[in-house]
């Protein structure tokens, strides 16, 4: 019998793997973006689980919107990445610290 907390724990584990991925792959921007996608997938699973176990369709609606926003975000993020590469010559995160205070 799979209960809600199983799904929540699964989602939490993958979330933290994604966080760790951000932490580990800090220099590679593409890897960062992909870890963010992983985190979003985990969160979406969380929502769907609640929607199923709570019999409320609102969870799935929310996932709908999260998918939309994530797609938009990825496209713009990659556009920025392209620009950075065009201007700096590499996607090493160390060169993108011009917002340093």
């Amino acid at each position: 019998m799979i209960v809600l907390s199983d799904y929540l724990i699964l989602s939490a584990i993958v979330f933290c793997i994604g966080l760790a991925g951000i932490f580990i792959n800090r220099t590679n921007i593409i890897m960062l973006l992909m870890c963010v996608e992983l985190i979003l997938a985990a969160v979406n699973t969380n929502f769907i689980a609640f929607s199923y176990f709570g019999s409320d369709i609102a969870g799935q609606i929310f996932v709908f919107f999260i998918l939309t926003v994530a797609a938009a975000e990825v496209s713009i993020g990659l556009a920025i990445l392209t620009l950075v590469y065009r201007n700096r010559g590499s996607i090493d995160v160390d060169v993108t610290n011009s917002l340093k205070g």
Partner: protein
Amino acid sequence: MEFTSILFYVFALYFIGSAVLMVTSRNTIKAAMFLILSFFSVASLWVLLEAEFLAITLILVYVGAVMVLFLFVIKMLDIDKSTVRAKFTKYLPLGIVVSVVVISQMVLILSAGHFDLDNSIGPVRKAADFSNISQLANDLYTLYVYPFELAAVLLLTAIIAAITLVHRKESRSKRQNIAEQVNVQVADRVRLVSASSSKSKESK
């Protein structure tokens, strides 16, 4: 053990496994592939949770569009493999520690007892021909129609933004240089002139 439970554990294992492999891979292309694998397992989990429409959407949109986009960009840009590798091992222990801590904290919180999750909610299984799409559509186009429209506008904005960003044509913009404006001196703006008053003939 029920069949669904076995399926759950299998897909969960795939999910976690591909996630770990993705995070620890040195090759960016391989990482993208593992991510695609993890999306597939997520989609299967969602089908288990009777969210069929979203599962298919995930495959179509995420894997079909977003990950393809990723692969395009990865191939387009030149990534220096050596630097990736060098910094990798430096932060690995700290990353593992942090994630383990957070995972254990979350598990502690989320496990049964604190939120009384096991006793409260039970799933309502629906019939085999129940249409998840129509259930979604019912709410989406009535209750949540405004967010729906907003999401559309958001996508439009994203299109315009992405195009504008990468567009190569030079833009002519008139920008203010605030620092220059604030540093203006009196001599640049005011010039004092002495003028003589009109001469009136005094009848003296």
